[in-house]
């Protein structure tokens, strides 16, 4: 199974989730290549001429995740000089802001990056996440970093715009998050809400300054935004709306999500519900109309994802398609309450043994997991079909949207399930 990343990777990913944010890796070059590749895969910002433009020290031709290339001497003597040397290069690139993230090794050294930035006079274009995040799960590192960046930006609140929201908790590590964002925005528009920003998902510095005018924050996956939501609430008085059924994954949870938001904001969910009903009817007609439709009822599955995704997914697959979980493992970082609810749900299905059982112990019909694990389980014969619902596989370049959130997410899941054989 793929070894899941920790908060260090989450932090790098979170910085690069900002449209004009750049993660600067303070650490050895060995930590750079993979992250540069993975982040480009999740959120491509590629431009023609990048190689030429970034063929300078600290970038060496690669625009994503420049690195201080710490070496043995730096571990012993500190690397203040490299931070100092890199800042003018990093900070000369337009409106981009730079966020230094320490590698696990560099975190042990104790370079004072913030101090170096201040001394060099680049406090408006660079900052550092001073904490080591290797003890935190990927999602918590992501959340912590988004919040730290927001605190550094210190947007000024001038008032509240009624009928506006921010979307929180949509990580760029989620497959085709841009399509998910459009999908969720559309649903919110249908109930009369305008989205001001989406911190952690393609949001710019300018969007952040507008975000504090929002009336509400709406939460997609709580693991990635619990602290950020609290920050908005405490600093700007913006309440967060979360849904008891978890993330908007599958028709039922999408419906529950939008109805909860409509109820909390005093809007009507009728138009959104109409759209959801339309999609459900389309699915009914498609399944009934196809003579050779695969039979998925009673198929079993493995599910590995964030708890907020697992909860609605398992319930939907069981209730909507008659599928049964064989193994369910939440990614690190979920809250205890969600875990309890998942276990309770499994009990109600008679599948309590599925909780944290070995996903490869016997062959199942489906494996819903991060892209890489899903592909490996399929390749090694542990399942008939692996379905990517998390951190995307870096081995594939795909073009058709495959988000898991929203209505298009439900359609993607059905598409994958019904094309098993």
């Amino acid at each position, binding site marked *: 199974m793929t*070894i899941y990343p920790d908060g260090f*990777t989450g932090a790098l990913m979170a910085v690069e989730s900002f449209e004009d944010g750049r993660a600067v890796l303070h650490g050895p070059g*060995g930590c750079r290549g993979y992250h540069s590749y993975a982040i480009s895969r999740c959120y491509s910002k590629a431009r023609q001429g990048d190689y030429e433009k970034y063929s300078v020290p600290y970038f060496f031709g690669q625009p994503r995740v420049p690195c201080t290339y710490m070496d043995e001497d730096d571990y012993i003597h500190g690397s203040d000089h490299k931070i100092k040397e890199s800042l003018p290069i990093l900070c000369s690139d337009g409106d981009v802001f730079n966020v230094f993230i320490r590698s696990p090794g560099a975190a042990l050294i104790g370079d004072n990056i913030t101090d170096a930035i201040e001394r060099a006079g680049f406090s408006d274009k660079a900052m550092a996440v001073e904490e080591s995040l290797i003890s935190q799960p990927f999602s918590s590192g992501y959340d912590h970093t988004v919040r730290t960046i927001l605190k550094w930006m210190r947007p000024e609140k001038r008032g509240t715009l009624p009928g506006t929201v921010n979307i929180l908790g949509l990580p760029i590590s989620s497959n085709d998050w841009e399509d998910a964002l459009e999908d969720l925005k559309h649903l919110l528009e249908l109930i009369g809400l305008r989205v001001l920003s989406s911190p952690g998902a393609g949001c710019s510095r300018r969007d952040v300054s507008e975000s504090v005018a929002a009336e509400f924050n709406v939460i997609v996956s709580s693991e990635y935004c619990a602290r950020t939501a609290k920050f908005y609430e405490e600093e700007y008085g913006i309440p967060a709306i979360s849904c008891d059924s978890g993330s908007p994954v599958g028709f039922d949870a999408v419906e529950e999500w939008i109805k909860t938001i409509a109820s909390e904001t005093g809007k009507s969910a009728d138009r959104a519900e109409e759209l959801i009903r339309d999609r459900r009817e389309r699915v009914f007609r498609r399944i009934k109309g196809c003579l050779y439709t695969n039979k998925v009822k009673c198929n079993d599955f493995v599910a590995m994802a964030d708890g907020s995704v697992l909860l609605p997914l398992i319930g939907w697959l069981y209730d909507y398609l008659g599928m049964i979980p064989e193994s369910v493992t939440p990614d690190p970082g979920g809250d205890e309450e969600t875990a309890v609810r998942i276990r309770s749900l499994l009990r109600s299905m008679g599948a309590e043994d599925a909780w944290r059982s070995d996903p490869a112990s016997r062959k199942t019909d489906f494996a819903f997991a991060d892209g890489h694990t899903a592909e490996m389980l399929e390749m090694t014969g542990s399942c008939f079909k692996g379905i990517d619902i998390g951190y995307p596989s870096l*081995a594939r370049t795909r073009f058709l949207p495959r988000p898991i959130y929203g209505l298009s997410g439900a359609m993607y899941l059905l598409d994958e399930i019904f094309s098993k054989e």
Partner: protein
Amino acid sequence: MENEYDIVERFADAVGLPIVARIPRSELFARAESEGRTIAELFPGSDAAKEFEKVATHVLSIKKNRSELRESRPLNDEQMGMIAKGERITGEPGADDTEKGTCRVCMRKPLVRKATTENRILSSCATAGAVYGCLSVSDAVTILHGPRSCAHIMSALKGIAEVKRGYGTDLQSVRIHSTEMDDTVSVFGGAGTLEQRIRDLILEGRKNFFIVTSCVSGIIGDNAIDVVNAISNEHPEIYFRVIEADGNITGDMGTGYVASADAMLDAVDGSVSPEDMTVNTIAERYLFRRGRDPDGGTRALFSALGIRMNCRFMYETTLESIKNIRLGKMTFAAGDDAESKRISRLVESKAGISVEKGTLPVGLKGYKAFHKKMGEAFGIGDVAEEVCLRGERRYLSEIGRLRKRTEGKRAIIEDRFTADIDWLLELLSDLGIEVIKIGMGPRHEWKEHPESRYGEMGIPFAENYSIGDLNSDIRELEPDLVLTDSGLTSLDVRATGYIRPDVGIEGVLEFGRRLANLMSVPVIEGWRRYA
């Protein structure tokens, strides 16, 4: 210690600094320590306390009067060694390898502030190299003693290659385990987590272990060897090896890769004798090879001659196979890069077998030489000749077909990293493509100096070749084709990347087909017009 004061005096004299106090050895230190107090607090009248008082007085004095401060004359490693041996130092203290304004006496080696330049950075680490090496042993687990992110990077990168190839059920990427070091290690060390991980895996029935340390364990100074030794004593039936790669502290990926070879070769049984019609291979790598059969060319090379492959060292093997590596009558390195050469030397010294001078062949010239050699070595000259002729006929026939599209074309080669491009030059020549320049990058590992090599072949070459140089040459020389090993293929000219192809002739022919196709397709594909 005998004459210890003399040594300190010599040192003080050499660096030009006074001795402020002489603190004696005393059991009072231990007694004060056990009370959790200082000597000065608990034994104020003692000799030791008086000496500390002198230090305090001196500090106060220089604080008031900074003119009492003296400039030190730093020593280099050699001079420090002379003092330790009780010798008077020679030469000027502080020879040129140090920098003014930094602490000198507390460092093992002089401080050199390295600039971040492309020539000096390490873009990989020894831990990654050691892990990838160890993963080639299918009946062993590799424990990465480091943070989870570190193991994630390595398993993910290995897994990407496996998924892209889409083969196999026994995946190397799942052989990696992590001790999942977190922030607590900086306080408590990571030895406990390492021990627990090993014991858990033993309980799961795992038999052979490679433990690779990361930069985190290197920095905090975990003694992984002691941990593993203790467990090893309890389980003498299990093979344990620790590779103290320590991230990038000990070097780059190549360093770690070679270190893993060293650790594996400890398993070799020196009493085993060679068997006829059997060969070993060393360090086969198919990192970017497509398809489900990346090593098909290598296997076909030997199977066509009826020769069995014994140990495929560092590719996909078992500890048992490494133990019996001496069964192979001949041993071939797959490539002639620096790591392959170092591993070959290790195999020779630790397994006591000789590694053939040539590598596994790539291209027709090497293919013919290889078959001649195999025919002689195994007494199968007729078979080898027949196989070789068949291959040569196929090669020439295919080249003839491709040449219609390539003949008379002119190419620039941008060679930033690759040690051996002989196969490429041979192929281009066979295809009738003229090489008008070879630009060699600053990190190039030359097989021979380019002047003696390419100058003699009549090909102009340039050293420290940059992207700017390449763009300029494209404008001035107007080549039909640019071949690059840097992956830079977005130029406004027909360009393609290259890596050393599969062994034998098929890999070269496949690349030849790519070049021929490149001559026919549009220079700029449509999607690039929407930058």
